[in-house]
C-alpha cells in the first residue's frame, strides 16, 4: 500500500516523507513533554503531532494514514484524553480543591518536576493532536465521497 504509485504524490515526496515524518512526530512529543521547561506545551506539541499524520496523508494518500490512525481510534482517543484531563483536575479534590497540584514539585529544571503540569500537558497534547487529525480526516473523507 505504501509503494502504490497510484495514490499520493510523486516518488521524491514519498521518499522525503519517509525520512522526515518520524522526526516531526518525535519533535511534537518532545514539545509536549518539555512543556513546563521550554516554550511550547500541550497545544503546540499536539498540533505538531497532528501535522505529522497530515503529512503522511498528503504524501501517501488517505488509506495509509487511516491504517495508522482510524477515525474510530481518533474519536476514542480524543474522548479518553478529555476524560484524563478532567480526572487529573478532579484528583485535586484529594488535597482539597479543583486543579490542586497534589504531586510533589521536584527540583526545577528537571524533566520530572512541577507535579501535575506534565500530566496535563500530555493529556492536552493527545487531545489536540488526535482531535485536529480527526477534523482533517473527516473533511477529506467527505470531500472524496461526493
Amino acid at each position, binding site marked *: 500500500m505504501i509503494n502504490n504509485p497510484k495514490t499520493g504524490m510523486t516518488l521524491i515526496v514519498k521518499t522525503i516523507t519517509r525520512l522526515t515524518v518520524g522526526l516531526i512526530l518525535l519533535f511534537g512529543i518532545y*514539545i509536549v513533554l518539555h*512543556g*513546563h*521547561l*521550554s*516554550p*511550547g*506545551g*500541550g*497545544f*503546540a506539541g499536539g*498540533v*505538531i503531532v*497532528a*501535522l505529522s499524520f*497530515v503529512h503522511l496523508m*498528503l504524501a501517501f494518500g488517505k488509506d495509509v494514514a487511516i491504517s495508522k490512525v482510524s477515525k474510530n481510534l481518533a*474519536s476514542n482517543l*480524543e474522548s479518553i484524553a*478529555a476524560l484524563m*484531563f*478532567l480526572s487529573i*483536575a478532579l484528583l485535586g479534590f484529594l488535597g482539597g480543591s*479543583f*486543579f490542586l*497540584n497534589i504531586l510533589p*514539585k*521536584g527540583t*526545577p*529544571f528537571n524533566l520530572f*518536576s*512541577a*507535579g*501535575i*503540569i506534565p500530566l*496535563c*500537558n500530555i493529556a*492536552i497534547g493527545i*487531545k*489536540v493532536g488526535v*482531535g*485536529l487529525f*480527526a*477534523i*482533517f480526516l*473527516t*473533511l*477529506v*473523507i*467527505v*470531500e472524496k*465521497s461526493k
Partner: protein
Amino acid sequence: MELHILLIFMICAAIVAIEVKDLLSSVIAVGAVGFALCLAFLVLKAPDLAITQLVVEILCLIILIRATINKDLPLVIEGRWFFNTVSTLGFIAVFLLFAWLALKELPGFGEPIMAVVKKYLQEGVSKTGAVNIVTAVILDFRAYDTLGEATVLFTSVIGIMAILRRPGRKK
C-alpha cells in the same frame, strides 16, 4: 520599528486577500498574514505564542488549500453596491467609536499594570515547580480556563464529526 513594518505588511496582505480574484491566491495571502503575526509575536518576545501560531497557521493553510483547490466558487459581485458600501462604512464608524471609547481606558503599549502578574512572576517557580511561566499560569493558576478551552475544542470536533459523517449525507 520592526513591529510597525510587520503590521503594515499584515494590513497590505489582508487587503490583497480580499481584493484578489483567485481563491487559492486569497488563501495564500491569508497565510502570509498569519506568518507575519508569528514574527510579530517573536518581536514582542513571546515564543510560546509564536510556536502555537506557526503550527496552527500551517494546519489551517493545509485545510484551506485542500478545501479550495478543486472548487471554482464564483465571486458574487452584483447590485445593491450603494447599500452595501453605506452599511459597511456605517459599521466601521460605529466600531471605531466604541473602540475609541473602550481603548482609551487601557494602559499604554508596553506599560503593563503588573498588579497580578508581579505575584505570578515572583512565586511561580516556588509554587508550581514549572520553569516556563506561561505553562505555570495556564495549567496551574488559570487551569480552569484551559479546561474550558479544551471543552471548546472537544465540542468543535464533535460538531464536525456529527455534521459531516457519511450516513447523514444520504437523502
